[in-house]
């Protein structure tokens, strides 16, 4: 779960990391009033969860009320890479002499947190990491002790941060680590951490990704997630149904159990010349109602021309799956899109007895099921 910039900034500011003065606004008048209160120049920043907001016209620097009105009017309501902008952050423009990067993430290869500092802030840090890995100082942290202050200092000196601000940057990095740890961060980043001509540091952006699996012990942040919801309509619906779902651009809808098997089904659709419309994992032990919801999800995607069910039961039971498929399909006078079903594993025989074969096409193997679904999608789109 990724926090919006304004939310992450609030979390950082509450912990004592310096941030610019800012206010959230959801209409043009509100944005202009906020800008007057903060004092020009200000930046007006779209609050949507996409990278490259600046380049896409989602961030504008303004000098006076007329410019502020024009910018807020342009940004509010705009479509930014598929996301509608309904809020902007109006923020004091910081006059800086330098831009740094500081971040904490989990190094999965090492199985340990890693703190990172670079003097090449203000740009895409992934590109820096790729082109010039040495430009980022890294310090691994023992998760059972947390980061020692000396480690923060070491990272800052290794990165070659100016001595005048080294102490402040170390403090920011320590605080960022403590936040990352206490809030179950996946990533916590400040890019850029601006250095002013008075040798002060200030977090001009704020990124905080929370480990979804730990939201149960982060109730405050879990509430923010609701507030932050947005984006693709189908992906929102999948959130409501609590499915692992990713929308893709093809026309073969895919439903399965278990991430690896669903990915494999996608790959086979592609292998047999079709195009997957989605990844949908119903998870382990899905009951009939959940299976019906999954079909509802996939049918809601207008691009879908055919659907393939691939269930290999372990915890999941074939009879429950069959019940769910019947339930979902019996409500239609005419099935909207052809459905191919492949059932294997736990209780598949019971499932096959229950499954209403007038409503679906049954195939015995994964390969046959996928080929049939690809065929159906092709036939429909040619009409």
């Amino acid at each position, binding site marked *: 779960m990724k926090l919006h910039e304004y939310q992450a900034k609030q979390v950082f500011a509450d912990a004592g990391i310096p941030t610019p003065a800012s206010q959230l606004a959801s209409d043009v008048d509100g944005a202009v009033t906020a800008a007057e209160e903060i004092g020009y120049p200000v930046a007006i920043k779209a609050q949507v969860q996409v990278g490259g907001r600046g380049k896409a016209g989602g961030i504008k620097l303004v000098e006076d009320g007329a410019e502020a009105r024009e910018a807020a009017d342009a940004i509010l309501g705009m479509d930014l890479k598929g996301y509608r902008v309904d809020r902007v952050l109006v923020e004091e423009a910081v006059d800086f002499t330098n831009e740094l990067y500081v971040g904490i993430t989990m190094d999965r290869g090492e199985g340990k947190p890693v703190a990172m500092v670079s003097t090449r802030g203000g740009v895409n840090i992934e590109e820096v990491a790729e082109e010039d890995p040495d430009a980022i100082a890294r310090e691994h942290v023992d998760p059972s002790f947390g980061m020692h202050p000396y480690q923060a200092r070491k990272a800052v000196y290794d990165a070659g941060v100016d001595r005048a601000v080294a102490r402040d940057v170390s403090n920011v990095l320590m605080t960022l680590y403590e936040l990352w740890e206490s809030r179950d961060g996946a990533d916590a980043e400040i890019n850029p951490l601006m250095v002013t001509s008075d040798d002060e540091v200030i977090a001009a952006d704020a990124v905080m990704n929370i480990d979804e699996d730990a939201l149960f012990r982060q109730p405050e942040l879990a509430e923010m997630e609701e507030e932050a919801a947005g984006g693709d309509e189908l992906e929102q619906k999948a959130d409501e149904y609590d499915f692992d779902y990713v929308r893709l651009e093809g026309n073969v809808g895919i439903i399965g159990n278990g991430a690896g098997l669903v990915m*494999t089904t996608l790959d086979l659709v592609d292998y047999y010349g079709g195009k997957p419309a989605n990844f949908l994992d119903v998870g382990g032990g899905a009951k009939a109602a959940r299976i019906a919801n999954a079909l509802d999800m996939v049918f809601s995607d207008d691009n879908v021309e055919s659907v393939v069910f691939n269930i290999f039961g372990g915890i999941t039971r074939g009879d429950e799956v069959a019940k769910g498929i019947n339930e979902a399909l019996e409500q239609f006078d005419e099935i909207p899109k052809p459905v191919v079903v492949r059932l294997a594993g736990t209780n598949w025989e019971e499932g096959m007895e229950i499954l209403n074969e007038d409503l679906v096409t049954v195939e015995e193997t994964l390969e046959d099921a996928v080929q049939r679904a690809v065929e159906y999608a092709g036939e429909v789109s040619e009409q």
Partner: protein
Amino acid sequence: MSVLVDDDTRVVVQGITGGEGKFHAEQMIEYGTNVVAGAVPGRGGQEAAGVPVYDTVQQAVEEENADTSVIFVPPAFAGDAIFEALDADLDLAVAITEGVPTQDMAKVNKRLTETDTRLIGPNCPGLITPGEAKLGILPGNIFAEGNVGLVSRSGTLTYQVVDNLTQRGIGQTTAIGIGGDPIIGTDFVDALELFENDPATEAIVMCGEIGGEDEEEAAAFIDEHVDTPVAGFIAGRTAPPGKRMGHAGAIVSGSGTGTAESKISALNDAGVPVGDTPEEVADHIEEFLS
């Protein structure tokens, strides 16, 4: 022959009084696994799935000589349950729980370096030595005794590939589901080493997926240290960058690492053929064995 588990393995089930714990303890016993105890705080003295329940894993070790734990504890308490298993000095702990917070696993990972216990999982289906014992939730009936070792990051994909093998009469020595999380106990390299050292294992299937660099590391290890023939499968060729495909670890990073292509080419370079379909994986194994 078997890897890690056999019919002498003495199993304690942590969380045996919960719905999943009880059901799968019964399934394991039915398969022939030597389940000797359960461990659930506050339930000591009770009985579940026909075995005595203790308040702590340590008691199950002392009273029943348990040497292996299978963990069915909800995610919020799973990290603690794994610590308990490691601190009880077991040989093996298998964590089935899905959704354990990553920071908890980082702490577990640190403790693993300080103990002799081997951890499998979390978020895994467990492991099975057909005909002897199964630890976890794998459906026993699709497996058959034989000479192929299998290691996989995904549960249901394991079932699929095993089914392809068993249907052709190819049985397995042991199948290990290592789990799809970013931080896990036993990884590909560990499992490959076990199979390489097992005289009964004559061929190995390795099922990987997008995300991370474990498959690349495994490929390098195979190149250097594995003489047993290995066939591979990589799920997620069609996954777009930046999207998490179900498993917490299955995400292709923006900078192009962890892709299916990089994994397949690393495996190919190590002499490992990678099937386009599970059926093709079985073809390769059949060839190795003929």
